[in-house]
């Protein structure tokens, strides 16, 4: 279990479509988890902007891969970080240089940088660490129920 706790209400709000998500560290290999996540979110109606210097200029998911967040010219709502924890802080600092700034920073499962999270929160951003937006989306919007997973959602409403 993650030691970070976020309410379902907050996560549901953060994952409203449509939004633009910059995926930092996105792989172009279709069996890598980052590709899986981005493709899923794109299918759900999010716009994905791939960021990965290793694949800059290549096409993935119908979008051109950019080398850094600084190259993005459209407003971004969420920066989703698919990098190891030790590289996450630098990505957060780059995100804070964007104008307009993104509203949300997501760090994937296992990605944690509490100091960077505090820097972003100080600038008014919302930060989620150690979570996958795909899993949370699937859990909150009824999809994981279809696989028999414990969603934690109890409701007598339609």
């Amino acid at each position, binding site marked *: *279990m993650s030691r970070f*706790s*976020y*309410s*379902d*209400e907050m996560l549901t709000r953060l994952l409203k479509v449509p939004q633009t998500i910059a995926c930092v560290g996105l792989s172009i290999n*279709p*069996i890598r*988890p980052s590709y*899986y996540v981005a*493709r*899923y979110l794109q*299918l759900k109606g999010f716009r994905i902007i791939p960021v990965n210097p290793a694949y800059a200029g290549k096409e993935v998911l119908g979008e051109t891969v950019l080398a850094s967040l600084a190259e993005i010219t459209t407003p971004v709502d969420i920066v989703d970080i698919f990098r190891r924890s030790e590289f996450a802080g630098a990505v957060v600092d780059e995100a804070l240089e964007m104008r307009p700034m993104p509203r949300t920073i997501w760090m994937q*499962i296992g990605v944690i940088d509490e100091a960077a999270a505090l820097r972003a929160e100080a600038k008014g951003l919302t930060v989620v660490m150690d979570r*996958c937006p795909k*899993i949370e989306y*699937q*859990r909150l919007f*009824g*999809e*994981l*129920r*279809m*696989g*028999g*997973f*414990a*969603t*934690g*959602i*109890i*409701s*007598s*409403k*339609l």
Partner: protein
Amino acid sequence: MSDSPSYGFDTLQIHAGSRPDPATGARQTPIYQTTAYVFRDADHAAALFNLQEVGYIYSRLTNPTVAVLQERIATLEGGVGAVGCSSGHAAQIMALFPLMRPGDNIIASTRLYGGTVTQFSQTIKRFGWSATFVDFDDAAAIEAAADENTKAIFCESICNPGGYVTDLASIATVANKLDVPLIVDNTSATPYLCRPFDHGAHLVVHSTTKYLTGNGTVTGGVVVDSGNFDWTKAGKHPSLIEPEPAYHGLKFHETFGPMAFTFHGIAIGLRDLGMTMSPNTAFQTLLGMETLSLRMERHVENAMKVAAWLEKDPRVDYVTYAGLPSSPYADRVKKHYPKGAGALFTFAVKGGYEACVKLVDNVEIFSHVANLGDTRSLIIHSASTTHRQLTPEQQEAAGAAPNVVRLSIGIEDADDLIKDLDQALAAATS
């Protein structure tokens, strides 16, 4: 997985998994009696087949009624997910399948349901697997029995045929030391009396045939994953960490994290082994589970009364109920099973095998059946039935010696159960 408010057991046993039906508003979970499901479009179909999206394809893999039961049991056990199976025995194979390759072995408790002893000592050999049986009161012996091909540890919480409860925390410690998952068959306890994950177990299996359904109507099983076993740490279980050829080289643990075992259970286990739970079975079990806590309380209360009465009866040699103060496991029950030691126990009749057979022939309220966990009280002479395939040593170790009768105490009036046993004992020992 959720950080939202947690609910009590009695609320979850009714509500977990079952929101009103989105298509009709039906409040009770409908029986979705369908084999296949229409795809929205080609992209949706491709995403489902690639495991990029969760949804319904074909009822060998997933079904809306079964999914409600899976989520309900996963929730009550405190796990991340569950896979429904056609029986408890199917669930055991489904639990082992992702862990084992030919040449691999498990360490299992000697105190198991007789059918499980047979499954592990005979049938799994045909897959090239094997089991070593060890006294689980001796944690050091478990460790000593393990080798580099040991891939799991298996035991029951409250054991069938009764009289023994496992100290799960001490076994979990051994499992962690060996870097293998501890699988607990929680059939006789149900999550109401014991949640093995709270004691450090990694996987739980159930025969939902028993207390979860409660009325003796359907056979079913379930495998529950805690999500707490790190498959990559020691890397002993290749199916969960290595590229899966049938899914373009996808690695389950890398892709699905704590949900890897459940995804594997659906995408490989049910897909290729096909030991699927039927929607009608899931429906019956869902109905039963709505009253699980109420029934278990009464089962335990009645078992205490009947066991205490038997223990004082001169026609009875001994009673093995772990809930009795005289049990050698009384302290363990108090500490690890505070809501009770279940409703399953054995007693030895003076007069041995012959008297046991006569006793079983003379009961009127107790039913002579090979089952447990029914609302009805049940009786069986294990040595001549369920444990017949075992050697005398195995029978003894499993608590099913020839002079022993097993009771599964139901939720009738305890006084009537005692009267019935009284007259049958009189007939058996006259």
